[in-house]
């Protein structure tokens, strides 16, 4: 049986650990099958909505401004692990952000999937389809 998780990230990328923890937990969830019943799997999806879409901004200057590593590495690792990453189009529009402003792939580290900019309705459908919904 496959258990589906959806991490809905609403937190800003910095001054809180919420978004970083969401990505870390989503990544970690991909290894738990070794502790589950034979054949059980966990599939994690990540959706960025509201202020959370700012996590997807590329060329973040976290080290310069906050002295910490940027969220970008975590973002790339989710794509490297083939996780589905959804970014809310309406919220990007609110911030005046376009695809050109965002980290959409992890080509440089061997990633094969891309983040998807989708209308909120698609994220809402995903919310209804999963077994566990985690807001961060």
């Amino acid at each position, binding site marked *: 049986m496959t258990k589906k998780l959806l991490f809905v990230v609403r937190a800003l990328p910095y001054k809180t650990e919420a978004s970083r923890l969401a990505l870390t937990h989503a*990544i*970690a969830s991909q290894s738990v*099958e*070794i502790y589950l019943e034979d054949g059980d799997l966990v599939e994690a999806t990540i959706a960025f909505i509201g202020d959370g879409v700012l996590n997807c901004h590329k060329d973040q200057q976290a080290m310069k401004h906050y002295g910490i590593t940027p969220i970008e590495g975590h973002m790339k690792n989710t794509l490297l*692990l083939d996780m589905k990453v959804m970014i809310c189009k309406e919220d990007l529009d609110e911030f005046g952000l376009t695809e050109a402003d965002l980290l959409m792939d992890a080509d440089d580290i061997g990633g094969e999937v891309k983040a998807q900019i989708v209308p909120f309705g698609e994220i809402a459908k995903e919310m209804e389809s999963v077994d566990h919904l985690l807001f961060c």
Partner: protein
Amino acid sequence: MADLKSQTPTQTLDVLGRVCPYPLVLTKKALEKIPSGGILKILCDAPASAEDSVPRFAQDKGYPIEVVKLENSWELYIQKT
């Protein structure tokens, strides 16, 4: 058991410098792509992955595995069956 390390690997996966859970998840991903019977060689320096999670995964799947401890890292050989 076949001596996996003496055979030419189908693919080599370098996860040196990566910590758990990346070695395991990238191993799973690599194994999905190699044909049945193929051998995946994994270069790893994360103890928890090399000694626990990756061997446990291979055993759960029924894939033969050999783990070779080097000075500061491990080589793991998994045959996809």
